[in-house]
């Protein structure tokens, strides 16, 4: 099976799953530098899909295109635009480049469908994303903190998490 480029993937998905692919709006990376030229906004070349259609799109990649190997789920906090971007990375076992699906969820209500029912390997990725960013994966069978302890409050990898004055530091003294 020939490997697809992101453009070909968008074409195929626009044909087979109309309405799934969204226009990749540019995202601002924060914080802008104090002096010097302002960085250009980040326009992704990967495929952005709507959160509600993530499962449909992922299963299309797996069952129709043969990209059955879910390798990684990363979260990026775009504070200036108020979104979290979830980056899903799929590969085929035959080899070659992978395909990327990106999903954007608002920071106020960070909810995305879980892929764990379809890929049990997504389990720990999603728990990590929940633990560090507070992304709620609906239908996840065991969405609990994984690194931090259960009573911990806050989401340590978010860009607005305070780096100083943590209430847990020095609490015993």
């Amino acid at each position: 099976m020939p490997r697809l480029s992101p453009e070909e993937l968008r074409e195929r998905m626009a044909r087979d799953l109309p309405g799934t692919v969204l226009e990749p709006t540019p995202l601002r990376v924060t914080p802008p530098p104090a002096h010097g030229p302002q960085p250009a906004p980040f326009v992704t070349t990967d495929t952005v899909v709507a959160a509600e259609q993530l499962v449909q799109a992922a299963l299309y990649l797996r069952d129709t295109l043969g990209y059955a190997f879910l390798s990684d789920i990363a979260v990026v906090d775009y504070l200036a635009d108020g979104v979290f971007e979830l980056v899903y990375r799929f590969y085929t076992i035959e080899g070659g480049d992978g395909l990327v699906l990106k999903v954007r969820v608002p920071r106020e209500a960070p909810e995305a469908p879980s892929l764990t029912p379809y890929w049990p390997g997504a389990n720990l990725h999603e728990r990590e994303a929940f633990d560090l960013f507070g992304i709620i994966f609906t239908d996840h069978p065991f969405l609990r903190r994984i690194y931090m302890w259960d009573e911990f409050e806050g989401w340590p990898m978010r860009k607005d998490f305070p780096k100083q004055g943590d209430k847990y530091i020095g609490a015993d003294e």
Partner: protein
Amino acid sequence: MFKTEELQINIGPQHPSTHGVFRMLVTVDGETIIDLKPVFGYLHRNHEQIAEQNTYLQNMPYTDRLDYFNSMANNQAYAMAVEKLAGIEVPERAEYIRVLMVELTRILNHAGALGFLINDMGMWQTQLAFGMREREKILDLFEMASGARMMCNYFRFGGVVRDLPPEFMPKLKELLVAMPAFVDELERLLRENEILMQRAEGIGVLPRELALAYSVTGPVLRGSGVPYDIRKAEPYSVYDRFDFDIPVGSVGDVYDRFLVRIEEMRQSKRIIEQIVEQLPDARGGHINPKARQNVRPPVGDAYARIESPKGELGFYLVSDGSPRPYRYKVRAPSFINLTPLGDMCRGYKVADVVVILGSIDIVMGEVDR
């Protein structure tokens, strides 16, 4: 009639078999495992958050601390991600030196991992000492090249920090001559060994389909019979120039993973022999002289992955144009390889858990990050 009751017990976090501080919440019925949940976080230091406050170059020694057995492999994956992001070219000679270092790392990792695995089975210390003895020789080479034995910090963007010293190659050739005897000895001692067969054969079976669904990589995936190796599947660096095979298992039990690791050591040796042949003709120096180390990559993202000794190690970087990464994410192989631990242990005995965990080959520095 006797009746047994289910019991929940903790194995770890302080337990000699857990290779660090790692807890397994086990439900047992007598000696049989009914359920197992891995619990981690005892070594969590929010590596990614700290890395986002460092400059790109400052993170290079910090990646050493992820999988502290394989600092060279971590260096390579990170250097490749930054080079992809910033568009830095690597000279041919530097690529050869990099691959040489990572293949040496693979040998020392597997020698150590097999030693610990046999240790977990109760064949106390002898085998581990064998593996550690070989590991020392490779660490001496690392010390020669980088100045450090474990936290090598050897790679730079566009190459490696310094060229190989003149005494390196003779020592390496000595090692290559002595190496087959070590691997053969290890295999002869263990392949038909009664204790190993009893403890490993048919234990911790991970079927092919399950291994794929669970996204495991590295020797665990290949032990389950999937010939997936990123060095072949998506060749990076100069791996497309070497002739080597991917060993695969058939059943997916502990024994298969053990055999895959033994064979991988032989294949790494094959690659190193080809490097020794081709290195003198390689063009360029040990580093790209135009590559700036205090990089400010343009706005964008990049993901680079390598076949580290434990599986797919990937770095996802997002740049905002500043000297510090906006997002730095590690795809750690031993973390993801722990996902199917519960399924692999179900139905086996408590004593098998220790062996199954040892056969996955985890490092808590990477799991907890």
